[in-house]
């Protein structure tokens, strides 16, 4: 039985909203408040680099829930008011506007923000992509852009490059890896992805360290590489990963180490939990401290946090998952795909660019990759990695 009568969720994006929804689904009828730094109602981020950036969707279509569904939650949304501090003894959160909100349980869901280059502040034409406003601003700038340089060869950078190329923009993708997403996909699939980008006319500057930006009259004109080359640019997107939004917690007494450090059940302190991109928790089955920025992590972790807020003692044991859509390729990645894994194609055909591969270490499956075969990838994932999204 739970004695929690009210819950404060700090963060009103995917993980925060999912926590609130899971609490209600599991029968919680007490007070529920979501505090958000942005004034926007909760919206989804994966479409920002794809459908919203391309213009296929109006920005409003990225909203996670319609008005009726939000109303049905019976929650108070305090939006546009960032949290600035947490008092662990009272579980009180102070906000930028000076309000103090207190609850029996506090769930930290403040997410991450883009890492930036040291010299990008104040330089026109340089973008990051995290918020809906970022996507709208980048889309607007791309309309007049001849040349875009994307700095960063991870998921976001590669998606932005593909979407911008689809808009007819001249695109260069620069990053330190031998192929886009090499760290996440391993050599086989990252190599195919590099081919795909090249075929669509994206210039790849691989194995290239970006050292800074070049500008004139307050506007970016290029990106400087370690070898001295300058890639000319009218618009630059910096996609160098993200840092957790934990500054507001530095004096709280919580352990902060590249995220809010939690136990196996996502508890950071008595009555305090963390969920989503910001949470670093102990994955008992993998024996590792993890912080996942994957979209499904937000909702799956929310389910476990909601159970634990309500008195359960449930460890969070997800099979990590992400997907990415670039040009005509739809990739699904379950588990992990280490560079040294044995790869066996178990459905489809690599040359047809429609296949599913299982990645094994010492004979044990550790990951499944689907390339334009989402359903078959999910089925192989169930066979190789277990039936449940989050095993109990």
């Amino acid at each position, binding site marked *: 039985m739970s004695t929690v009568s009210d819950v404060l969720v700090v963060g009103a994006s995917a993980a925060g909203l*999912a926590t609130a*929804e*899971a609490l209600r*689904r599991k029968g919680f009828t007490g007070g529920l408040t979501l505090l958000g730094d942005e004034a926007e109602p909760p919206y*989804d981020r*994966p*479409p920002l680099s794809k459908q919203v950036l391309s213009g296929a969707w109006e920005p409003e279509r990225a909203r*996670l*829930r*319609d008005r009726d*569904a939000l109303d049905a939650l019976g929650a108070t949304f305090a939006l546009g008011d960032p949290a600035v501090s947490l008092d662990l003894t009272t579980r009180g959160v102070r906000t930028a506007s000076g309000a103090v909100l207190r609850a029996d349980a506090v769930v930290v869901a403040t997410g991450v923000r883009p890492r930036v280059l040291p010299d990008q502040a104040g330089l026109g034409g340089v973008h990051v992509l995290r918020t809906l406003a970022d996507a709208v601003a980048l889309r607007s700038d791309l309309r007049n852009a001849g040349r875009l340089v994307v700095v960063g060869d991870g998921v976001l950078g590669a998606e932005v490059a593909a979407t911008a190329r689809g808009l007819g923009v001249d695109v260069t993708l620069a990053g330190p890896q031998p192929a886009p997403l090499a760290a996440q996909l391993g050599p086989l699939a990252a190599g195919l992805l590099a081919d795909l980008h090249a075929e669509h006319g994206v210039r790849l500057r691989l194995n290239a360290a970006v050292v800074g930006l070049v500008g004139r009259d307050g506007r970016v004109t290029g990106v400087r590489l370690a070898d001295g080359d300058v890639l000319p640019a009218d618009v630059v997107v910096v996609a160098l990963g993200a840092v957790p939004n934990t500054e507001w917690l530095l004096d709280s007494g919580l352990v902060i180490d590249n995220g809010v450090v939690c136990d196996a059940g996502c508890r950071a302190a008595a009555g305090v939990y963390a969920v989503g991109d910001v949470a670093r928790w102990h994955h008992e089955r993998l024996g590792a401290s993890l912080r996942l920025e994957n*979209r*499904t992590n*937000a*909702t*799956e972790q*929310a*389910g476990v946090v909601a159970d634990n807020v309500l008195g359960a003692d449930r460890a969070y044991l997800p099979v990590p*998952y992400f*997907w990415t*859509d670039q040009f005509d390729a*739809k990739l*699904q990645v379950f588990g992990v795909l280490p560079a040294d894994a044995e790869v066996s194609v178990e459905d489809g055909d690599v040359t047809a660019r429609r296949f599913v591969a299982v990645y094994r270490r010492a004979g044990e499956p550790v990951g499944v990759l*689907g390339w*334009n*075969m*989402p*359903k*078959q*990838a*999910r089925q192989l*994932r*169930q066979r190789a990695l277990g*039936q*449940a*999204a989050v095993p109990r």
Partner: protein
Amino acid sequence: MQVRVDEDKCCGAGSCVLAAPEVFDQRDEDGVVVLLDPEPAEHLHAAVREAAEVCPAAAIALGTRA
């Protein structure tokens, strides 16, 4: 309970099939969601609610029968 799916939003993760295989499936060719039962029986409601919440593309909406 009335279930609606938005095929255009669906990203093919298959989270809904993991949560409620009696109600959701995926197309063989592109993985897009297939709604097997738009008015699932009561014993499936909890699983369907979970499927709607965990969908990473917010492509499942639930309503009550009109």
